[in-house]
């Protein structure tokens, strides 16, 4: 029998979430911040699927359904976010979030 249980996956998710949060908080590059958001969404997905497997039990897949929705929204978020980054770059010629502090050109 395997000794891997629910807490192992939750701890991996927690570390993933914390590293994503560090990325979001400390990066100055807008693309780097988007990468951190992807890490945070992945951490949430790990938790969804771990709870689905260990708590919901066989035959129930609500957690996996939610993980698919999270993946769909992550794809939409990445497309919109990177389009905004490109628009910012076209306007300011930089994507350093410290310097792009104007809403107009």
């Amino acid at each position, binding site marked *: 029998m395997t000794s891997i249980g629910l807490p192992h996956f939750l701890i991996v998710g927690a570390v993933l979430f914390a590293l994503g949060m560090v*990325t979001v908080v400390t990066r100055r590059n807008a693309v780097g911040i988007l990468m951190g958001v992807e890490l945070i969404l992945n951490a949430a997905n790990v938790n969804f699927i771990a709870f689905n497997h260990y708590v919901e039990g066989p*035959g129930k897949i609500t957690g996996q359904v939610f993980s*698919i929705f999270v993946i769909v929204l992550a794809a939409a978020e990445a497309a919109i976010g*990177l389009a905004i980054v490109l628009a910012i770059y076209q306007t300011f010629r930089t994507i350093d979030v410290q310097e792009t502090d104007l809403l107009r050109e």
Partner: protein
Amino acid sequence: MPEVPSHLRAVLVRLGVLAAGLAGIVGVAVLNRFAHLGLAPTLLLEYVAVTCVIWGLNGFLFRTVPLSGLSLLVFSAAAFGVLFLVAYFVGAIVAPLLFDAAGQFIGLVHLTDFLFYAFALMTIAGAAGCAFSRNIIYSAWALLFAFLGVAGLYVFLGADFPAVAQVLIYVGGILVLILFAIMLTKQIGGDPSLTNAHLGLPIGAALAAATVGTLAYMAVMTPWKEAPSRSYEPVSAALGTAFLTDFLLPFEVASVVLLAALVGAVIIARKEIKEQSDAVLE
């Protein structure tokens, strides 16, 4: 310092290495003999043994950076710390996996555990590389390993469809999109330390430590109501049924959201062309 002939120097070096090895062996023997001494003297003896080994190897392996005096002691302390961590890892984490309660060697029965740790390590190392790399290209490639590791974890949890979706959408879609954005917004060849600068990293690290501590404490200490059995069946058919029955409204809304995101991304990213056509109209 007088010049020593090279062959004599090699002999001396070998003698030093031999002495160092003997010192290490004697140190280990002494440790086992006097284990009842307590933690602090044991650690001190171990540290002295490691210092002897380092001193014997000194001039042989570290010829370019000769160690002497305080730097020898500091380097020995660092090597001792690494060895201590390795010994602790082997003794406290690996050994319980290799032997059952009766002390019998059970070997690869826990292969799945090792695979889990390999995938978890891959995920966390990738995420750490993404968080701390100074070059944003390296961050993106580290993200690849994080995504693949998460896909492996999904397989461990009996979620085949989300694992494949993870590989297809994250690795094949989002990561390629991120790399495109990096290439379009950054002058490749500039100073790498400027492409992915950090701001307030100590505070961020403290925040991460606090978050991991809280969440890990919660994960370990909460008495989760675990299901009595687990299934590793294929889930694609059940997922399709769920999407078209119980989750029909969210499914349709998600498709509308994707359409809106697609149109919005095109409109936002094509801003310059729009301005150009305005100028032509004027």
